[in-house]
């Protein structure tokens, strides 16, 4: 029924060519993904991109139409959820209201038929991971949202699973609790070295917690890489726009000699070194706000439309011939005032160039 592969470096979770459709609607269109043991992998994507379905394929609540699911070197594609050592932290926590905190934590241990004293020891340890020792006997409906979240986390971890799936775990929390919970999660993970698949549509959460990020769009993994590489070298215009704020400029490729240039609307020309693009093809150029600089030799002439000071940085809205640009400048330097005319530019490497046919978010 399921195959086993012997390999010490085998991934904790692996998807091979996974496809899934609901009716005629394709949800996942051929996803390949390997998550290493002890790794924190964030799956980032907009709602409807197939994130939750992908989680369900791994936990076993759904099964793929095509492709294979492997857990720790074992093929589990057709195994039901209770035969897989994968536990989920649900978005709404899904705690058992008829059991107290201890009862909730004992639930997976009793099903796994752990001996009585081991159950006791594991529950005590799990309570200490999430700082809930004093609430062990409380009914879960008397707990606050943050406390419930930590019970759900402890319940998913207590039976030492091969992988913990976190389905938008912070989305039901108050914003001020999210950072705290994220830090707690990171602390527990670094102590237990448990493999985590963290699903979210919040780019900040994903970039902060993950060792690697996968960006999912319309059922396809568009890019997998470290948070820095996904942010700094996005593989597509979608990824560039989804993992961070970005300014978009429309341009057409032209060659002067053998050096390619991008001719912006308004006439300014930007060198496209190292880019192989056919002449007169349409491109979009993306520049992140923090890469936009005020410089005497800048490519564009712009006028400061508005200026917002926020402590560490100043955000400027600049109107240029090519487009309206947002610039985020460090607040310690001298920043131009509203109405001032400035030259605007960026390092050559800071511009992300994509062929125009690629779709981009606004």
């Amino acid at each position: 029924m399921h195959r086993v592969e012997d390999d010490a470096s085998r991934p904790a979770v692996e998807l091979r060519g996974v496809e899934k459709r609901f009716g005629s609607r394709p949800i996942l269109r051929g996803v390949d993904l390997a998550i290493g043991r002890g790794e924190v992998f964030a799956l980032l994507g907009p709602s409807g991109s197939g994130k939750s379905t992908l989680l369900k394929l791994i936990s076993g609540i759904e099964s793929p139409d095509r492709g294979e699911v492997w857990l720790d070197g074992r093929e589990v594609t057709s195994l039901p959820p209770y035969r897989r050592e994968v536990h989920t932290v649900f978005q709404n926590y899904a705690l058992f209201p008829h059991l107290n905190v201890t009862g909730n934590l004992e639930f997976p241990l009793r099903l796994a038929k752990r001996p009585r004293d081991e159950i006791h020891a594991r529950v005590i340890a799990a309570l200490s991971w999430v700082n809930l020792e004093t609430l062990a006997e409380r009914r879960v409906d008397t707990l606050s949202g943050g406390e419930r979240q930590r019970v759900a986390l402890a319940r998913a971890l207590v039976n030492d699973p091969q992988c913990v799936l976190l389905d938008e775990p912070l989305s039901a929390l108050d914003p001020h609790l999210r950072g705290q919970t994220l830090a707690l999660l990171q602390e527990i993970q670094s102590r237990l070295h448990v493999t985590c698949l963290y699903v979210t549509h919040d780019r900040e959460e994903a970039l902060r917690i993950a060792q690697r990020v996968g960006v999912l769009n319309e059922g396809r993994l568009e890019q997998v890489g470290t948070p820095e590489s996904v942010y700094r070298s996005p593989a597509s215009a979608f990824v560039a726009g989804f993992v961070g704020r970005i300014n978009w400029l429309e341009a057409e490729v032209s060659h002067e000699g053998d050096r390619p240039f991008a001719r912006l609307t308004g006439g300014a020309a930007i060198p496209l070194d190292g880019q192989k693009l056919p002449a007169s093809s349409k491109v979009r150029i993306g520049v992140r706000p923090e890469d936009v600089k005020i410089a005497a030799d800048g490519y564009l002439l712009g006028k400061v439309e508005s200026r917002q000071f926020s402590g560490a940085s100043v955000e400027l809205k600049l109107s240029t011939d090519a487009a309206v640009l947002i610039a985020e400048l460090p607040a310690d330097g001298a920043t131009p005032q509203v109405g001032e005319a400035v030259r605007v530019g960026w390092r050559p490497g800071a511009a992300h160039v994509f062929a125009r046919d690629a779709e981009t978010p606004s």
Partner: protein
Amino acid sequence: MSRSRGTPWLASPALLYLVVFSVLPTALIVGYSFCERDFYADVKAAFSLEAWRQATDLITLKTLGRSLLLAASVTAIDLLLAYPCVLALARMDRSLRGMFVVLISFPLVTSLLLRIYGWMNLLPLEWRGTLPSVALVMAVNYLPFMVLPLLRAFERLESGVVAAALDLGATPWQAFWRVTWPLTRSGMWAGCALVFIPATGEYLVPRFIGEGHVNVLGTVIVQEFMERRNWPYAAACAVWLMAIVLAPLLGSLVAASRSASIGAARDREPT
């Protein structure tokens, strides 16, 4: 414990109603059961234990047992019919479920007598006048009272807890017994009470489907009051009926208040 001490007089109309139409008649019935029988008037105003001697003899106790057996069978049949029905209903989407709920409750808007006459024609001749056929017809009549509270409990079952149980290693069977069952049990008890309590005093179905062969407390009380004019004995039977209904009700009330006070005490503990 007294949370709302403010305006107890608001309860006085309801209290008055309760005293005049419930407490006084009940006291009267209990009083009658200790009176002497009078063939021409209702009762003689003289103390007698004759009615209770009769009400604790073998024939009455057998009738009592038959009433309990009938009510318990009806409750059991309804539970067996309602549980799978509700499992299916809970999985339907809202609009379809609403339609089925209306269909299930529909018998409640048609006359009970008409339905009984209908059943008298439907049942095979040899089934008439038997306890099982009485139980069958009563079970059909009471089915909505089992389905509706049970369905309510299933609708309140927080979405995701069953999926969470499966995810944490429960087989579908274990998920049912460890999560679905305990979380819907209260609805089941409510349904059982709503069926069992009126079923113990049922008169119409045993009278017409039983055709005089199925004697239960309900039929005996009517017979003794109306035909044999033995009011003290009929009153004693009515007290029996009340005791049957009240005993489990009081028991559950005591249990509920005890668990509530334990819960309250737990919540007061400093954390």
